[in-house]
């Protein structure tokens, strides 16, 4: 199962990186979102899958899944949410101000 999930994470990365290399802002944002999904999957896979009960302590259970990746991912989900919404608003404002959402056209000048 871990191998399958690793492959899936790799595929999410592939799609994410491809989208990030595009020119339109919306595509780039979709790319970052895919990238963070891939990363989350990657982290939880590294902690071994399905080896016990959910990490909520209860009587008589000694075997739990690894809680640490989950804590890391939880932090990460929230942060990537913040980043995604920031980027979305940034894209909206960029388009309003500059009239284009094409990154190649938004390059700086020579002497900036």
């Amino acid at each position, binding site marked *: 199962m871990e191998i399958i999930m690793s492959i899936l994470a790799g595929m999410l990365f592939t799609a994410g990186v491809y989208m990030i290399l595009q020119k339109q802002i*919306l595509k780039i944002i979709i790319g970052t979102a895919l990238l963070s999904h891939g990363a989350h999957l990657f982290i939880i896979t590294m*902690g071994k899958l399905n080896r016990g009960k959910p990490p909520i302590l209860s009587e008589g259970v000694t075997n739990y899944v690894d809680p640490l990746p989950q804590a890391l991912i939880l932090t990460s989900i929230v942060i990537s949410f913040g980043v995604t919404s920031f980027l979305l608003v940034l894209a909206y404002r960029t388009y309003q101000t500059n009239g284009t959402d094409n990154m190649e056209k938004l390059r700086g000048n020579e002497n900036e």
Partner: protein
Amino acid sequence: MLHAAVLLPFLAAFFIPLIYRGVKQVHLGWFVLLVPILLFGYFLTFIKGVMQGVHTLKTFEWIPSLGVNVTFYIDGLGLFFALLITGIGSLVVLYSIYYLSKAEKLGHFYVYLLLFMGAMLGVVLSDNLFVLYTFWELTSISSFLLIGYWYQREKSTSGALKSMMITVFGGLAMLGGFLLMADITGTASIRGIIENGEMIVNSPLFPFILILVLLGAFTKSAQFPFHTWLPDAMEAPTPVSAFLHSATMVKAGIYLVARLSLVFAGTDLFFLIVSGFGLLTLCWGSYMAVTQTDLKAILAYSTISQLGMIMAMLGFGTELAILAAVFHILNHATFKGSLFMVAGIIDHETGTRDIRKLGGLFTFMPITALLAFFGTFSMAGFPLPFLNGFLSKEMFFDSSLHFEDASTIVEAVSPFFPYFAVGGSIFTFVYSIMLFFRTFTGKQRGTLSKQPHEAPIGMLLSPMILVLLVVIIAFIPDAFGHALLSPMVDAVNGSVGETHIKFWHGFGPALYMSLSVLILGTALYLAREKWQHIYKAFPGKLSAAKAYDGLINGLLRGSRKLTNGYMTGSLRHYMIYIFVFFIALVGITMSVTGGFQINYNDLAPIAVPEVMIAIVMAGAAFATVFMKNRIAAILVLGIVGYGLSLLFVFFRAPDLALTQLIVETVTVALFLLCFYHLPNFDKKKESKRTNAVNWVISISVGVLVTMVGIASHSTKLFEPISDYFLKNSYKLGGGDNVVNVILVDFRGLDTMLEILVLGLAALGIYTMIKLRPGKKEGND
């Protein structure tokens, strides 16, 4: 006490601005003057001890872990330089009181000057190579500040920058040499290194060490071809030129060579480089000085040439040559210092330093002219018994003729040395008397902005004292010889015999050399109109200054080109750099270390629903890439997110699943909100090549991530730390939900900063929506 003495100028530099603010009526220089005079008196007390061979050593542990101690050490060499720095320093400060009016930024000036004084004392007194290096660079910095003192003038700033570039370049090279020396001998103490000198000379790295250290010395002492910064440094106020750029700082390189002579001298390489470049600099400097028209430029080239002469004598390495070298350091400081001050007086009282405009000043300024007479004729080495310059020039000729127990290379090269010595001296003679006669005799050739008149007595006082020294030294050279020079030769040479300096050497080669300089020099001076055009042919357009400019401009252009080459402003390019670097780094590491392994033994069983979800997610992820429609792309992205939260459910991560579900919902809603304001996807396709590059990079990244994931699962190098959290969650954190306890307790700081990130994002979003340029707030 010794530490306090070196520290005193720095302390004074700290308090000077306060005095400057408080006391406006008295010229700031009077307060500053106390510092060098006090120090001069303090160092004088060491003379008796040093004459008897008593050396003072004071240590203060600065960075014990690195073996860097601030050890100050007074022997003949250090003491002489300390006296030179403080003595000339006193006279220069006195002179500057009359030279700089109160309208100038005196606070800055004296702070820089004191910084320099302290740094220079540190250079000549410290026994630790790295402390010496620190002070060395500090002198470069204070020199930079002083040259750029009149920072409104473009020439000042460019001259300051040039001196900084060249001397700091040399300083860094020198540091490299120091590091190698300290590494080979295992000590950073100069005395320790001298004791272990053979280890360095016998090391295979010796040529590198020598060249690196000499780079430092040659750049600082303006040796060919690094001399080009010194003429440009003449933009500094004249007291600075007299102090830093003739008497003290430019002699730091001489000091370094002298100090390390006990290590290097005796090797052929040292002999060839130091005496060769010294003689070359002597000739080139004096040759170039003749064609200058600015008084200070003549003096600058003259200083270069004289430094070359001293350097050459240190290169000769015989006891006679070393004595002549140290004697000439003293003499040069006296006559060149006085000449710089005279040049400053002429500039101050006539408004120009251009000798094409000057002339006949003798009638207006007889005292200045008399001072200049002693200075210039001493510099020329004119055979008069009251000029110290003649004594050391004669000794220089003598030393260029005698080489004891010479090796084959020395024997092969040394017969040419007297010719260089005479050649350089002839031009020295020419520019020296030209300087005097064209300024003070004949008719005034141009209109001056000021009616020339004699300078105030305060301004004349310092050059007078120096000229007095010129004469005194010439009459009783042995008194100085015993008190100062013998201990110095001892420090440089390791031993000292009899040092008797005499005016009359009898009829010998040295005398004939002096006479030929006198005759040829006079002839060349009289016939100067006829041969001046030779400068058009040589050096013509060649000059070290041009080479420097070309180098600097080339470097600037090159780096700009390089930077513009990859800093294209294109986000895609930057992302490509990052990904390619990631691929290269991880890929190479993995293939080199053989880190990729697959271990099939320890896998979770494959469950059908999970695989189904995975397939759907993969499909959806790639669908976002190919979707032409924005809403469709966003919804498909949502499928990936929801799929992930389902997977979290299967993988027993209830908290993750819940959070992911909520966040995904909100994100999709946000996307849908925003896309309305954004334009449609471009219909235009990317070029095939771009597309191919994108795919190659993204697939490589994906494959590498997969490989890392599998490899990390298959290799267990150490036990996971998660057990700690499971065991202590209730005991230490008081909660059953281990993930939550980790977040709010074990890794609470993480969570707090995460909240901060969210807050910042919210603030950013609010700002972007609410604040617009050109619109008043609240109009939305």
